[in-house]
């Protein structure tokens, strides 16, 4: 994984935005090498984000390519109102939700598998004390959040986004971002008692 791209503060701060804009210009001229460069640069950040939203690796992988097809066809629609990375994450978010919805419809109609049970299968969180166990519990706890709540949690805590950036990515008012986070915190707090173990 490209640690140089992931996990730093702010989506916009993670990459050289001027370089990304230059890549988009080349892509607009039909330069496939530029598309490959952008793809390689953003593959893992997009994949992780879309996996965290959909909880399905196959859907997340498809979504990355869907995002890049949008970029290939409509790179000129990048208006410069946000960073390229914020723009890409926004496209990815919408693709992920659509893909998840389509999968849910297909699953409801054709499969005998209970989608929610499949996606959110879980065991009651147990009391654990070390960080590795906390990660496992977190993985389980995230299943209980809605895709929209997971997106806000992931963008805040992994990608270091400000609430304004998140609002731009998920295309909603900042108050909605804060509300989603508030509910996500409440759910995680119930599910992850280990979070509070060091609290005074």
């Amino acid at each position, binding site marked *: *994984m490209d640690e140089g791209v992931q*996990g730093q*503060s*702010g989506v916009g701060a993670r990459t050289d935005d001027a370089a990304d804009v230059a890549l988009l210009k080349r892509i607009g001229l039909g330069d*496939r090498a530029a*598309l*490959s460069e952008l*793809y*390689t640069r953003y*593959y*893992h950040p997009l*994949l*992780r984000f879309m*996996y965290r939203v959909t*909880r*399905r*690796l*196959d859907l997340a*992988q498809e979504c*990355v*390519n869907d995002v*890049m*097809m949008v970029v*290939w066809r409509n790179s000129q629609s990048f208006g410069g109102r946000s960073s390229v990375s914020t723009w890409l994450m926004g496209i990815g978010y919408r693709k992920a939700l659509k893909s998840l919805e389509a999968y849910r419809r297909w699953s409801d109609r054709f499969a005998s*598998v209970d989608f929610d049970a*499949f996606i959110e*299968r879980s065991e009651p969180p147990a009391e654990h004390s070390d*960080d590795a166990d*906390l*990660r496992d519990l*977190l*993985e389980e706890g995230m299943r209980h959040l809605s895709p929209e709540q997971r997106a806000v*949690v*992931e963008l*805040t*805590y*992994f990608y*270091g*986004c*400000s*609430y304004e*950036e998140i609002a731009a990515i998920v295309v909603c008012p900042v108050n909605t971002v*804060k509300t989603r*986070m*508030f509910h996500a*915190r409440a759910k*995680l*707090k119930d599910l*992850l008692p280990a*979070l*509070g173990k*060091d*609290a*005074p």
Partner: protein
Amino acid sequence: MTGRPELDHTTVYELLPWLANGSLAAAERDGAELHVRSCIVCRRELKELERLRLAVRSQPTLHVSAEGGLDRLQRQLDREAAKQRPAPPRRDAGYAPFLRYAAVASVGVAFLGVLLWLAPNVPNQAGYNTLATHSDAQRAQIDLIFDQQTAVADIQALLQTVDGEIVAGPSELGRYGVRIHGGSATDTEVNALIDKLAHDPRVRFAGRAFTESSQ
């Protein structure tokens, strides 16, 4: 005097996740920090959120190579480009165009017949793609189909234990091509791993990667 007004409790409580990730603008950050210093509820919550942030950041990474996805994207672009090429002008009047195409087709069929006669064992060069025909699959050493109930975190954990990396797939059947030790695993090592993986409850199928050369 800093001149920064202290924010009220409700506002700060909402902002704590972004105080924890360091993304608040200076004015909000200063106002929130001022409140947190005097509010035990927010201090405790901030500490919990910092632990949550660390836990999220230390979640396992996805060991999936970008190469397979990029390869699929390139093929999709090729197909689109082929569709967009201008079609030859259509001329509906008379039989001349039909005769011309018929003549070309006859020559083509005859040429194909000669080819088949000369090379009866031509390997599969059909126009369809399977997992095995992908360039990444050529480098895959093991084909794996995971149990449908296996979570991705479990898949990642499993791949980590065998130093494996997904380089192709999933196919429509959910088959992944996996490379071991960056492709440097010996046949003996690969066989041993297949045996081990085949008995793993998270795996529905494990076998030698199916490549053109293995046919």
